[in-house]
């Protein structure tokens, strides 16, 4: 009986993980296809389509756009989130709660709504569709996340370290730069990498707010409109690979440092 239950549990786990990971496995597998269609039978492995993607200026340019957009918008989101968390940790009572709630609330608004709102707003104030506009959108979606992560780290311990720094003559910027930021370094790295991951493969806002200069996810979408193509698989695999690397970096930043400090 026990063995039957174990067997069923194993089967269930296999199905669940298969459901989650099979599409990705298929995508990556057929990116190594040698023939023209990403359909069985598998004719690879071949790097033909990776060569085509990396040789296509349209894609490498979009990739660069995505990378720059991700790095800049994430840096801005982390900086603003950090300052907001630092300030909010000092606000007591109802006012602080209101500010916190307003900062975190955008997490529950869909990207579609945020994107449409930005389209309308930018149109009204005369900001053209551009990577800059997308950058603003990405700061809007990532700021609440960065704030939430960093605020959760602003504990009494940090507040006491700040007191100690001020007591020893540190000015406010020195408290931030020499004590709070280094102590919160793992959380800062984690929120940066998380923002970067989200910005890197964000499609909706980028689609709504760009025209000619655009990001990688939008290029992929354009490509897919003309039918299945192993090229799309290759780009997808690259996007996925970069995301995985960033998530691993984030985990190392959070858990790696945490382990070292406990010892």
């Amino acid at each position, binding site marked *: 009986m026990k063995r039957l239950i174990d067997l069923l549990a194993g089967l269930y786990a296999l199905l669940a993980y298969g459901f989650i990971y099979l599409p990705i496995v298929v995508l990556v597998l057929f990116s190594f296809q040698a023939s023209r269609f990403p359909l069985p039978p598998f004719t690879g492995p071949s790097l033909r389509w990776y060569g085509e993607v990396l040789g296509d200026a349209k894609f490498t340019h979009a990739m660069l756009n995505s990378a720059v957009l991700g790095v800049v918008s994430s840096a801005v989101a982390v900086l603003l989130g950090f300052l907001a968390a630092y300030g909010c940790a000092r606000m007591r009572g109802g006012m602080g709660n209101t500010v916190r709630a307003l900062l975190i609330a955008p997490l529950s608004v869909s990207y579609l709504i945020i994107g449409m709102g930005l389209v309308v707003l930018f149109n009204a104030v005369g900001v053209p569709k551009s990577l800059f506009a997308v950058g603003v959108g990405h700061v809007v979606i990532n700021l609440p996340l960065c704030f939430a992560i960093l605020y959760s780290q602003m504990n009494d*311990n940090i507040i*006491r*370290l700040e*007191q*100690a*720094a*001020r*007591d*020893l*003559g*540190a*000015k406010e910027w*020195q408290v931030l730069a*020499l*004590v709070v930021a*280094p*102590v919160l*370094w793992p959380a800062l790295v984690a929120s940066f990498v998380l923002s970067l991951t989200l910005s890197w493969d964000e499609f909706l806002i980028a689609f709504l707010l760009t025209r000619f200069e655009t990001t990688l996810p939008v290029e992929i979408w354009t490509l897919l409109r003309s039918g299945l193509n192993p090229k799309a698989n290759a780009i997808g695999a690259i996007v996925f690979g970069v995301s995985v690397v960033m998530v691993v970096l984030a985990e190392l930043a959070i858990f790696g440092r945490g382990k070292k*400090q406990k*010892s």
Partner: protein
Amino acid sequence: MSTPVVSISGLSHSYGALTVLHELSLDIGPGEYVVLLGPSGSGKTTLLSILGGFLQPTRGQVLIGGRDCTRMPPARRPTTTVFQDYALFPHMSVGANVAFGPRMNGVNRAERARQARETLALVGLEQAFDKKPHQLSGGQRQRVALARALVMKPKLLLLDEPLGALDLGLRRQMQDELKGIQKRVGTAFVHVTHDQEEAMALADLLLVMQDGRIVDQGDPERVYTRPSTRFSATFMGENTLIEAEVTGVEGSLAMIKTPLGTLRLDRPGARLGKAAITVRPENMRLGAAPAGTVSFGAGTIAESVFQGSYRKAVVQSDSGQHIVLKLAADEPAGIGSRVELHAEPRHVGLLPG
């Protein structure tokens, strides 16, 4: 006393409707080791925070080194604080922690490293210069925190339960070191604790706090043997309190009516009215009162418990009082035996109310 380092007058503090300090006034002399002793909620930490500049008092004035510091931020005060959990910067080496204050004051790299080494040597930790705080033991971290505060050459050093996180043995050892360091640097220390033994071992001036008021202050030996309020009589260790009444005062001599008879004690400033007399268990002696001592009458031993280094006994006196005694461990104090009790006058406390 020479010019005080710290002079507090009319200090009050409230959190909304809750008043945590009531009209406190206090002078601290140069090089004095002041200990604030009290249970939690007595206002001792609030007072320390006000001295450190982390809290601004609702009313009153704080002069440090003759300057009005009441509303001055911590960075600009001639005070530094050793925090309860040390608050060492975890990402910096021990040397960088200690050199942090001089660095903020714009001292150059070589000079501040020299100052940091010198101060670490003072606390016996020069070999830890390059270590990180998490590589040190609790007692060592404590000393780094002390060095980081002392390197600033403050006029007043504030210590918030500095030994609270250490285990008992280490605490006693650190407390001796703390006293030694304080005597060497000659800085005035204000130390908050709820550990009575620590307070008595360290203090030149002991302040007992309760509900936002200083209820007793002075030399720890006096505060312990002859406490001046009921709270300080019972808060610190065991004590016998006997209800009494001051019925007459002639010069410095007080006539005190007690259930054990009338005592005449030299207690300047005694006031007529309800009072209590106190004797610490270790100061109560067995035997008929010799001349010049205070008799506590006769009674029967009701309890006698061997405690290792001493024997604790409770005597039921013939006048109905329970009197606690600390006797030599080998004293033959059998339950039910008849004894007479007396104490030296200097061991008898008189407190009003």
